[in-house]
């Protein structure tokens, strides 16, 4: 891990130093990941709602107009569990200086190949949040925005993970979290429905026991200076085949948290 992290630090400045053979090898996989009707269709469908929430809350936090060009201009942003870059790329287009990390090395290769295609400069690293915190905090402080989208329900130890990702937020910065609530309804919809009935996600994608209640998320962030300003539910409308914000937190929900200035 340490070796991978240091090699990728050398590649920080963007895709120009990326190995072209590596790009070629992962281009086909990137196309599959990015196929809006392919394996990751649910994530593509969900994306506009997630992006709009992040954009609107972060812009408001910095007193900017979210509908103006490049509303995240100049902000540093870390996408934890970036996968193929489905969130990292839009964030880069909205003006953020994006770092994407993922524990799966293959995802990082895919993300790099696709960013190269899109002509976007994104610093993708094969690293965990914990390793990145050790690597980056002593020198640079942290990020204006840390995205924890659909990752906290997959980590082995929630408290350790929230501590590491909180440490990566700059004082006065923000964290956005998206996850699944540990309710019977979430079990029925997100596990049984999405994985077994609809086949949207591969079986075994989610372990219901790891789902996180909003109160647990708030309690996990508080010791590290993170204060949740807003919770919102995310609901799917099967008739319009669209996701949207909802007051119902019982299945998918998102949280916007701000870190105190005097952290």
């Amino acid at each position, binding site marked *: 891990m340490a070796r991978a992290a240091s090699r990728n630090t050398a590649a920080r400045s963007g895709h120009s130093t990326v190995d072209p053979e590596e790009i070629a090898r992962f281009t086909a996989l990137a196309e599959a990941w990015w196929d809006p009707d392919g394996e990751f269709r649910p994530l593509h469908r969900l994306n506009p709602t997630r*992006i709009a929430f992040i*954009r609107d809350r972060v812009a408001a936090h910095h007193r900017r107009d979210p509908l103006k060009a490049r509303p995240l201009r100049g902000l540093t942003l870390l996408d934890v569990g970036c996968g193929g870059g489905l969130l990292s790329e839009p964030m880069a287009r909205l003006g953020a200086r994006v770092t994407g990390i993922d524990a799966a090395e293959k995802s990082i290769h895919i993300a790099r190949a696709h960013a190269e295609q899109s002509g976007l400069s994104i610093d993708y690293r094969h690293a965990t949040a914990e390793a990145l915190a050790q690597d980056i905090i002593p020198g640079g402080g942290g990020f204006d925005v840390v995205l924890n989208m659909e990752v906290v329900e997959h980590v082995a130890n929630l408290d350790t993970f929230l501590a590491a990702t909180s440490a990566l937020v700059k004082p006065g910065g923000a964290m956005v979290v998206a996850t699944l609530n540990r309710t019977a309804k979430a079990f029925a919809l997100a596990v049984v429905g999405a994985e077994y009935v609809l086949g949207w996600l591969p079986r075994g994608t989610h372990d219901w026991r790891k789902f996180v209640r909003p109160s647990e998320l708030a309690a996990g962030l508080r010791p590290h200076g993170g204060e949740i300003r807003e919770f919102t539910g995310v609901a799917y409308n099967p008739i319009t085949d669209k996701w949207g914000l909802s007051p119902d937190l019982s299945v998918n929900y998102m949280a916007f948290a701000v870190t105190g200035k005097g952290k």
Partner: protein
Amino acid sequence: MAAGSSRRPRAASRLRGEVLVIGGGMVGLTLASALAGAGLEVILVDRVRPESMTDAAFDGRTSAIAYGSQRMLAGLGLWPRLADAAQAILEIRVSDHGSWLFLHYDHRDMGSRPLGYIVENRDIRRALLAHLATLPAARVIAPARVVAVDRDERGVEARLEDGRVITAALAVAADGRGSLTRRAAGIRVTEWSYPQTGIVCMIAHERPHNGIAHEHFLPAGPFAVLPMTGDRSSLVWTERTALAPAMLALDDDDFTAEIARRFGDSLGRLEVVSRRWSYPLSLMHAERYVARRLAIIGDAAHVIHPIAGQGLNLGLRDVAALAEVVVDAHRLGLDIAQAPVLERYERWRRFDNLVVIAATDGLNRLFSNSLPPVRLARDLGLAAVNRLAPLKRFFMRYAMGLVGDLPRLLRGEPL
């Protein structure tokens, strides 16, 4: 934007934008205005020098601008440049040759707003070009000819005849009914021609038109007199293609006499004050409106019979829908040309366009006919529509562009 940055732009020979609009007609110019106004970098290429596009000789035609389209042009900040050149339509009188029955649309049935406006195409172009010049995100390249458009997952690369290369995320074909861009993309069309020719000219008349548009159904096809600013009207005369050359060859006095013979003397003495244009009438509908990183709009996607004056309005509705889906995606940092974005445009517009295509084709077939049973049926139909207020209001609202799932621009809202 960063899109395409990996292609190492070289000096002046490479131009980079987010959207490339091919074709600078009214629809292409409006799309460029809408997108550039929302902050997208737009490059518009046209084969014709912009100044000559506003000559009277370039295009003497007029367009009907439905109320919904007017609201959109106002929302884009264009209407102040057009208002003086626009004649409000306050009433429409539809009549059938040799029959006492007619259909009467009055704007007062719909509240105080006009049913629409008649504007000369060159005035619309002039206003759009002047507006585009004020938008820093818009760039017009003309005269220039696009000779190749390469589209792949990375983006669009278009080559101009002079060797310049334009890169963008999305290409839009607004290059008219014979769209080379559409053909090169392999998008097929359904089309047929009518045995009719449209003769167009401008007349001045002795008496004021009072904002009344006339549509008079003659056996050869509809004969429309559309009110223009001043004591002028625009004539759209549908004639059998076999007879049209003879009409066009008449001297001024005889040509005017033919018009008066068809229209009558309700506006007093008539005088033809422009040259005469003619064009064969046809119907065309593209099988797809989108392909990889390409959308086609306006006449490049559909050409309809001018019977209901809906041609430009359909094109402007395409603009409103495409601009909305592209701007929404752009504001989310998504790839503006990804398939779901373009497919949303296609789904949104295809059905509406088909309805209007079918309706205008049906109307033309119904009215360009002098068989007695057909005439009786249509006269009864006209009379029935005239008496059924809700049905009539629905037709009026449809023609005014106020029906359906409207894009924000057509609702008069900002993008």
